[in-house]
């Protein structure tokens, strides 16, 4: 029979706790330097945003007809990143997939911060951000309410729901682990964790309700993931604009989201397991499975590209064909082909089991995918706007420093938050890992499972 990738089944429950809790011990200077660096960039980005609010959106490269570009691209990109988290933590949980246990906490954390980052961009791109709350229904003396027919309102609902729900899900998962941390820690940290643990003790009563609720939350999160990125895709598909208006967008964007998200998980985890010294918990086996998910979603995305192109050709509609002609061979054609390379071709390497477990290769591939998926959104959003129904109004877009700095700030914002978390809260779920180990031992026909 085929040899499965290496799995570490040695650790005892105690080892697990040790290695996870060790990560949470006070950090060194390098770490704080990194954190400082991140939040400095965040500060710079914020300053540029402030100036943009003061001066007006004219400071961006946006123009007639490219009314959306980098900001919305970032929004979609980060929402997409978020999705893998929920996929791994909820969907795979329902499928009772075992390899998720070691990675899901990190993935889910990524989800939270990715959504928190994504959520900034709809605000940043608004012409009058100080009125953003008009997108939400609230009682007011003028009886003015949002138009629920607008995709942007669906977005507001979907994204905020997503943020809330995944935050709850994440918090629930954390509670038992924090209780563990509480036992291990001392001094102010102990107080800190004591508060966060909310007095969890793992009694049968607690576990009983906890497990049920966890299952149900997973059940809710699963369709939520589908809906959120579908809604995001509908921000575009609802328009008549060629290149935006396409029925395949919903599932295609969902697949793309998971694709980019899992790639981002890999991008983050591979260095992290090294830095945090948790190689024995995050093994080849985990990455092999992550790689398979990437491969699958990559194929789905490719299928969507092909279908779209075919349907455009088949439609015989000159306007739509012009849009796609420009997408392939126009001035931004290189972006498109770069995207094809990153999203369709390079991931094919993952058909080889050897590459799937070669972490260096896998990491590089995942980087390419991140780039490719960002480009995909940009090509779709800005690229389709450039070439519209009204040839006299075609016009191209040039990015400005403001947009670049705000984008950089947002990336720093995400990395900073994630790094903070990875040191202060258990980056790997001890509880679930223990469950996983139990299962593994059984699976591998090891003698009667002893926790010790």
């Amino acid at each position, binding site marked *: 029979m085929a040899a499965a990738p290496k799995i570490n089944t040695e650790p005892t*429950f*105690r080892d697990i*706790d040790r290695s996870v809790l060790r990560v949470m011990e006070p950090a060194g200077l390098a770490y704080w330097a990194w954190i400082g660096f991140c939040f400095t960039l965040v500060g710079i980005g914020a300053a540029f945003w402030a100036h943009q609010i003061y001066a007006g959106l004219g400071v961006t490269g946006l123009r007639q007809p490219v009314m959306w570009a980098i900001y919305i691209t970032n929004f979609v990109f980060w929402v997409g990143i978020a999705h893998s988290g929920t996929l791994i933590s909820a969907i795979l949980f329902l499928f009772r997939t075992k390899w998720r246990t070691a990675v899901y906490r990190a993935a889910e954390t990524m989800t939270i911060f990715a959504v928190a980052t994504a959520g900034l961009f709809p605000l940043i791109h608004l012409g009058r951000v100080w009125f953003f709350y008009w997108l939400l*229904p609230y009682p007011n003396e003028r*009886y*003015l*309410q*949002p*138009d*629920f*027919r607008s995709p942007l309102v*669906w977005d507001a*609902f*979907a994204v*905020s*729901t997503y943020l*809330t*729900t995944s935050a*709850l*899900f994440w918090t*629930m998962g954390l*509670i*038992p682990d924090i*209780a*563990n941390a509480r*036992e*291990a820690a001392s001094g102010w940290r102990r107080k800190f964790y004591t508060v966060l643990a*909310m*007095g*969890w*003790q*793992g*009694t*049968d*009563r*607690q*576990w*009983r*309700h*906890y*497990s*049920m*609720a966890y299952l*149900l*939350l997973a059940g*809710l*999160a699963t*369709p*939520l993931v589908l*809906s959120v990125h579908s*809604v995001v895709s509908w921000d575009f598909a609802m328009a008549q604009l060629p290149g935006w208006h396409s029925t395949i967008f919903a599932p295609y964007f969902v697949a793309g989201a998971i694709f980019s998200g899992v790639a981002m998980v890999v991008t983050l985890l591979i260095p992290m397991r090294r830095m945090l010294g948790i190689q024995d918990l995050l093994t080849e086996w985990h990455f092999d499975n992550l790689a398979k998910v990437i491969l699958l979603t990559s194929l789905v995305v490719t299928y969507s590209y092909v279908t779209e192109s075919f349907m455009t050709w088949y439609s015989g509609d000159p306007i739509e064909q012009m849009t796609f002609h420009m997408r392939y061979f126009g001035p931004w054609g290189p972006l498109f082909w770069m995207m094809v390379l990153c999203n369709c071709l390079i991931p094919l390497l993952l058909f080889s089991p050897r590459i799937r477990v070669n972490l260096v290769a896998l990491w590089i591939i995942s980087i390419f995918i991140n780039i490719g998926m960002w480009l995909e959104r940009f090509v779709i959003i800005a690229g389709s706007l450039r070439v519209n129904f009204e040839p006299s109004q075609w016009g191209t877009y040039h990015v400005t420093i403001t947009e670049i700095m705000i984008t950089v700030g947002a990336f720093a914002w995400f990395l900073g938050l994630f790094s903070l978390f990875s040191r202060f809260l258990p980056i790997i779920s001890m*509880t679930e890992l*223990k*469950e996983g180990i*139990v299962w593994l031992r059984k699976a591998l026909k090891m003698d*009667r*499972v*002893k*926790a*010790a």
Partner: protein
Amino acid sequence: MSAIAIVSSFADDAECAHAIEQLRVAQVGDFNTFSPIPSHRIEHAIGKKKSPVRWIVLAGGISGILTGLAITIGTTYEWRLNAGGKPLLSWPPFIIICFELMVLLGGISGFTSVLALARIPTAEIAPGYNGRFGEDRFGIVVHCDEEQAERIESMMKEAGAEEVVREGV
């Protein structure tokens, strides 16, 4: 009530569950357990009904849908505005709003119901709790009075308890 708490720790949820079954057969004292991971075996052994959380979540979800219908239809009719000739009652969009609210309220109710039912946040530590129970030991704490103590201790030992401690309360 009972004066003594007998705390016994197990290395394995199977043994722990076994012990619990015996306790229930013997009908001595009342007990509660601690475990580092959720264990079906233990849950079976204790044999309580399924958690009511699922009904609360269901209720939450349904109320979410109703809220969705209320605000979409309500606001639409508050001001019957024509946008792009689309009908006032534009169901496809409304369905989306309802769905999101269903998930939102469902999720929130699920989370809060756990807090309520599992009695957290709480400051008090249950008698007999021990850090190891969060790490790698399954524990049973039996509350009983003097005369039963001996019997229970032996019962636990037979069941495979690594150590059995008697704590006065």
